[in-house]
């Protein structure tokens, strides 16, 4: 009698778990509806659009100089990279030559922004996994970078510093000196992160072989940036289709092996080292000269369309712009890296545990300002 009761099959039902939009681990306002069977995820329904501001439509009503401020707010962790790609699009349309010095300063600041963005990733990824300390250390180092931005651009986040034709104004006199001491501090901070997190047993157990993305899957989804390189595909626009002056620097493309969460973490950490090396080379080569090619404030680029892409900390950003010859663009379309990387979330999450959902989402490093635009 008793034996029969034990052997009777239990009726199990799937449970719907709502994660987000106000969840600290979704890195913004991202909502997932998870269908779980016990601890195992069987279905995922992502909801985006909570941060939709209509940036692309807004661009149609603003003049070119004002649009730079909108691009600041797309990916709010890598503002300068966004500004740069938009300015390059307008410059390509107008066939504008940019002074050497401006190019170098742009590259230095963009790489510095990449470091800041990756440092924040390392910190928050540690938080996702359950490590509190790295986030404190990384925010400390990021704070130094932001002070540097404050000294150069005047703002900590929304800079509006890179202008069409160059940069707003020349860097302060002690720029090189301060950058050099900053680089030393960053290197030290990065080694600390490496020692703290990378080969910690608990961290390895939480991230190794979790959320594995094969190279084929990554390419099919159009994943770009560190998430793609973690799967072992060495594609980096800075190297493959060099824009600005990236062909003058010697740097490597770190790639991962199998594309799990740990690879995606470690590729970013290695990328910080490469960025620091680019900055060092650029500081060494920094020439004198003008910083901006003067243009009219009310720009009227010629009729035509242009597609420009660049390497953001999160992946490949593309700007497609149509100009109808007036002072406002006819259409601006942004190809956001975060959005394309986020599309893999369903395939990655199915058949994993609920506890790993946060880790996998964190390892993709999305910024919701860019996903929703």
């Amino acid at each position: 009698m008793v034996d029969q009761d034990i052997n009777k099959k239990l009726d199990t039902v799937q449970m719907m778990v709502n994660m987000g939009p106000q969840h600290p681990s979704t890195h913004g306002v991202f909502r997932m509806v998870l269908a779980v069977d016990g601890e195992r995820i069987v279905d995922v329904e992502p909801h985006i659009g909570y941060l939709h501001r209509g940036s692309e439509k807004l661009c149609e009503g603003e003049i070119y100089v004002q649009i730079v401020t909108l691009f600041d707010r797309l990916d709010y962790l890598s503002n300068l990279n966004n500004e740069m790609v938009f300015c390059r699009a307008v410059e390509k349309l107008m066939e504008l030559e940019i002074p050497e010095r401006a190019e170098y300063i742009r590259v230095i600041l963009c790489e510095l922004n990449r470091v800041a963005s990756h440092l924040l990733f390392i910190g928050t990824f540690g938080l996702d996994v359950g490590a509190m300390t790295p986030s404190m250390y990384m925010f400390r180092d990021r704070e130094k970078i932001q002070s540097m931005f404050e000294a150069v651009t005047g703002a900590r986040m929304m800079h509006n510093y890179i202008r069409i034709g160059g940069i707003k104004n020349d860097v302060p006199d002690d720029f090189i000196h301060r950058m050099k001491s900053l680089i030393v501090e960053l290197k030290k901070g990065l080694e600390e992160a490496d020692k703290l997190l990378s080969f910690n047993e608990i961290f390895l157990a939480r991230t190794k072989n979790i959320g594995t993305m094969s190279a084929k899957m990554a390419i099919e989804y159009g994943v770009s940036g560190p998430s793609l390189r973690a799967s072992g595909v060495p594609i980096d626009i800075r190297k493959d289709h060099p824009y600005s002056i990236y062909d003058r620097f010697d740097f490597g493309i770190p790639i991962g092996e199998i594309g799990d969460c740990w690879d995606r973490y470690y590729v970013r950490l290695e990328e910080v080292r490469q960025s620091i090396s680019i900055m060092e080379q650029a500081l060494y080569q920094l020439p004198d000269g003008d910083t901006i090619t003067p243009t009219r404030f009310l720009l009227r680029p010629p009729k035509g369309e242009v597609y420009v892409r660049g390497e953001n900390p999160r992946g490949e950003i593309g700007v497609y712009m149509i100009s109808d010859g007036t002072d406002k663009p006819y259409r601006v379309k942004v190809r956001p890296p975060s959005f394309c990387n986020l599309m893999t979330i369903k395939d990655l999450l199915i058949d994993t545990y609920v506890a790993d959902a946060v880790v996998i989402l964190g390892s993709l490093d999305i910024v919701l300002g860019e996903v929703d635009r």
Partner: protein
Amino acid sequence: MLGNLKGLLVTLSSMLRKPVTYQYPKEHKPIENRYMGFPVLMWDSQISEPYCTGCMVCVRYCPTQCMTAVMKDNPLHAEGVSKRRKIVDSFEINFGRCIVCGICVDVCNFDAIEMSHEHELSKYARNDNRSDLTRLLEMGRKYQEETDWKPKTNAKESEEEASS
């Protein structure tokens, strides 16, 4: 196990380090020279009138439409004291809308508007940060005293252009 120990060593060594935290309300981080706070209006102490002529170029190019300006005839110009034929009558910036982009400073022909170091502007009511001309000039004076501000060189030429 080795990885854990390595991590512990890092945290241990940081115990000996000085704290880097600024205890914010008590202790402030030093402000950089170029820091862009909210835009304020500048005061011409030689003639004792604002630099602003109310030409509305900043109003037109503001991405968020956070300002308004009204122009009037300058009484000091009639007396022959000032070169400015027109002067600002009323000016309002809604700091709640301002995104501190600095475009207004770039377009201004008279060096009248400047990004101050002002950033702690919390108020109790929603519209308390809609600042009128007097408040903007007051904040501008504070900024001028703090930083030894001087008008840029091209200001004189454009003034003459405007008055001719």
